[in-house]
C-alpha cells in the first residue's frame, strides 16, 4: 500500500473538503515522507562509514610514518596500541561505531564514545585535538562561506535568468546569456587568483586572504559563487521560458493580470522548479569548490583538512569528514525534495 493511501486511511477524508483541512493533510503527507526518507539514511550512512573506514586502512603507509622523530618499532607499537590500530578491523570498526564491549580493568564495559554518541574519535595527526574539535572550529567558517556563496549565486542568478527569459531573443537576452555561460566556464580556482591579483594586490580594496571581518568574506564568496550564479541563471531562463509559454500564463494574460504580476507571481513559481532540483547537486559542488577556495584564500575551514588528512592517512579524520559531508548532503537533498513538493503541488509521494 502506498504511503499516500495509508495516510488517507488514517486521516478523516472529509478533512480535505476545507482549505485548512487540505493544508493539514498536505503537511502531514510531507512530514511523513520526510521522516521515512530520514530513516532510510541511517543504513546508508553506516554503509558509507564502513566503506570509508576500510578504504583508508587499505592504503599503504600509516598515520605515524611522518613522525618528526624516527619512530622505533617500540614507539610505533605503543602508538598503535594507544589508538587501537593493532586490533582486528572488525573490532576497530565496532569501536568506531561505539557498539560493543571490551575488557577494561578485568571488567566488561561498553565502548566509550563512538559514532552513536556523536564522537568521531581523536585525530591521529593533530594529537591534542579530537576530530570533533577540529570540525567544531572549522565548520562554522565553511558553512558561512557556503551560505554566502549560495545567496550570491541565487541573488545574481535568478534575476539574470528571469530577465533574459522575459527579453528572450532580444539583445538583452544575448548579452545576459553570454555572461551566464561565461560564468559557468570560470571555476573558482580561475576566478580566485584573478580576483586576488586585481582587487587584492593591484587595487588593494579587499584583503587577499585569511578570515576575520566581513571584508574577508567578499572575494571568496564571489570566487565560489560566480560559477553557480551562471548555472542558476541558465536554469532559471530555461524554466521561465517554458513557464511563460504554458496555458495558465495565457489564461492569466486573458484575464488582464499585469505583466509584472504574471512574471513574478505566476511564472516564477513554475520557472524556479529546475533551480530547486539543481540545488541538491549545487550544494555538493559548493563543497567541492570550497576546498579550492579555502586553500587559495587560506581560510581556516574544514575543506582544507579533507585533502591533507587523506594524504597523511589521518584515518579518523578522513572517515569523520566523509561522514559529515555525506550526512550534510543527504539531509540537504532531502530538504530540497520536500521544498520541491511544497512548490509543485502536482508531485505525489509514492
Amino acid at each position, binding site marked *: 500500500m502506498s504511503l499516500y493511501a495509508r495516510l488517507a486511511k488514517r486521516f478523516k477524508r472529509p478533512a480535505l473538503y476545507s482549505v485548512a483541512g487540505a493544508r493539514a493533510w498536505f503537511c502531514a503527507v510531507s512530514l511523513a515522507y520526510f521522516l521515512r526518507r530520514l530513516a532510510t539514511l541511517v543504513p546508508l550512512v553506516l554503509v558509507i562509514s564502513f566503506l570509508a573506514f576500510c578504504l583508508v586502512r587499505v592504503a599503504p603507509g600509516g598515520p605515524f610514518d611522518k613522525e618528526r622523530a624516527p619512530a622505533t618499532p617500540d614507539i610505533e607499537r605503543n602508538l598503535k596500541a594507544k589508538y587501537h590500530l593493532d586490533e582486528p578491523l572488525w573490532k576497530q570498526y565496532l569501536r568506531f561505531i561505539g557498539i560493543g564491549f571490551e575488557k577494561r580493568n578485568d571488567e566488561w564495559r561498553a565502548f566509550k564514545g563512538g559514532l552513536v554518541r556523536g564522537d568521531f574519535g581523536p585525530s591521529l595527526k593533530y594529537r591534542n585535538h579530537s576530530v570533533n574539535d577540529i570540525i567544531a572550529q572549522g565548520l562554522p567558517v565553511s558553512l558561512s562561506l557556503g551560505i554566502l556563496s549560495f545567496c550570491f549565486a541565487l541573488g545574481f542568478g535568478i534575476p539574470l535568468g528571469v530577465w533574459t527569459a522575459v527579453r528572450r531573443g532580444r539583445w538583452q537576452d544575448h548579452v545576459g546569456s553570454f555572461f551566464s555561460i561565461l560564468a559557468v*566556464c570560470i571555476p573558482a*580556482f580561475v576566478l580566485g*587568483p584573478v580576483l586576488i591579483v586585481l582587487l587584492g594586490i593591484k587595487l588593494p580594496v579587499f584583503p587577499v586572504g585569511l578570515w576575520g571581518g566581513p571584508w574577508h568574506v567578499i572575494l571568496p564568496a564571489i570566487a565560489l559563487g560566480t560559477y553557480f550564479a551562471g548555472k542558476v541563471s541558465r536554469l532559471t531562463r530555461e524554466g521561465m521560458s517554458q513557464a511563460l509559454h504554458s496555458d495558465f500564463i495565457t489564461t492569466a494574460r486573458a484575464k488582464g493580470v499585469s505583466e509584472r504580476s504574471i512574471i513574478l507571481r505566476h511564472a516564477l513559481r513554475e520557472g524556479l522548479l529546475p533551480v530547486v532540483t539543481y540545488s541538491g547537486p549545487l550544494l*555538493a559542488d559548493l563543497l567541492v569548490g570550497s576546498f579550492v577556495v579555502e586553500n587559495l584564500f587560506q581560510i581556516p575551514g574544514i575543506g582544507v583538512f579533507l585533502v591533507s588528512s587523506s594524504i597523511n592517512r589521518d584515518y579518523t579524520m578522513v572517515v569523520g569528514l566523509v561522514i559529515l559531508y555525506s550526512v550534510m*548532503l543527504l539531509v540537504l537533498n*532531502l530538504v530540497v525534495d520536500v521544498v520541491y513538493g511544497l512548490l509543485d503541488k502536482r508531485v505525489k509521494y509514492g
Partner: protein
Amino acid sequence: MVEARHQSGQALENGESPNRRAWLRFRDNRPAMMASLFLLVLIALALAWPLISSQSDVHSEAQFAAPSGGHWFGTDVHGRDLFGRVLAGTRISLMVGLVGALVSLVIGVSWGATAGFLGGRWDNLLMRTVDVLYSLPSIIFVIVIITTLEGVLQRWLQVTFGGDGGETARMLLLYAGLGAVSWLTMARIVRGQVLALRERQFVEAARSLGLGTRAILWRHILPNVFGVVIVYLTLTLPAVVLYESFLSYLGLGIQPPRASLGSLIAEGAAQINPIRVYWWMIAFPAGCLAALLMALNFLGDGLRDVFDPKADKDC
C-alpha cells in the same frame, strides 16, 4: 532560430536524410560552428606543437620572463616557454576529459539501458541507486580513492608489469574516478529514452520475429539512443575537464613535470605575491581553460538543439 526551423522545414519537404537535416540545423547555429572551429584549431595546435617547436621544454635562463616575441605567453618559474606548456596542458586536459567522458558513457549507457529495458524491480533498484549516488558527495570519494588506492595500484603495477608505475597508476585512477562521478545524468537520460523506445512498434515487430533480448537491445534500441548519447557526451566533456583541472589544482591529478591546465593555474597562483605580479602565469592558462570550456559548452548546446528536439524550448 527562425531561419533554422525554416531551413529544416524546407529540407523535410525535399526529402533529405535526417543526418543532412541535422547538419543544416547545426550549420545555422553560429556559436556552435565558431566553437567547433575554435576547438579544431586548438586541438590541431596542441597536437602539432611538439613537432613544430623545439623549445617547448627547454630550460632557458629567462626565469619569469614577461610575454614577448620570443615567448608569446612568457616563461614560468623554471624558464620554460609558457605557450608550449599551456598547449601541452590543453592536450592532457582534453585527453583526460575524453577518456573520462568515455568511461562515463560506458557505465551510464549500460546502466541506463539495462534499467530501462528490464523495467520493473531491476529498474527500481538501479535507478534508486542512481538517486542515492546523486545525493552523495562523489568527488570526496574520488579524492579519498585517489589518495588511498594509488599506492595499492602502483605496487600491483610494479609487480605485474615492472617499472615504476606511479604515473600509470595515477592516470588510471584519474580516468576511472572522473568517469565514475559523471555517469549519473547519462544513465537517467538513456533509461528514459530506452523506456520510450521499448514500447515502439518496431521493437514489437522485432520481438514477434523472434529476436532475443540482447539482439533487440544492441541492434534496435541502442542505435536509436545514439544521438542523445552524443549530445550528453559533449556536455559531460567540459564537466570532466573541469573536475580534472580541479583535482590537478589540488595536486591530486597530473603530476609535474607534466602539466594540465589545472596544475598550470595552481603554479601561477603559487607565485602570487605583493611585490611582483606574474600575471601571465595565471591569465594564459586560465584564459585557455575558460575558452576551452566555453567552446565545449557551445558545441554541446548546439548539438542538443539538433539531436534532441524535446530540449528545443522555442516551439
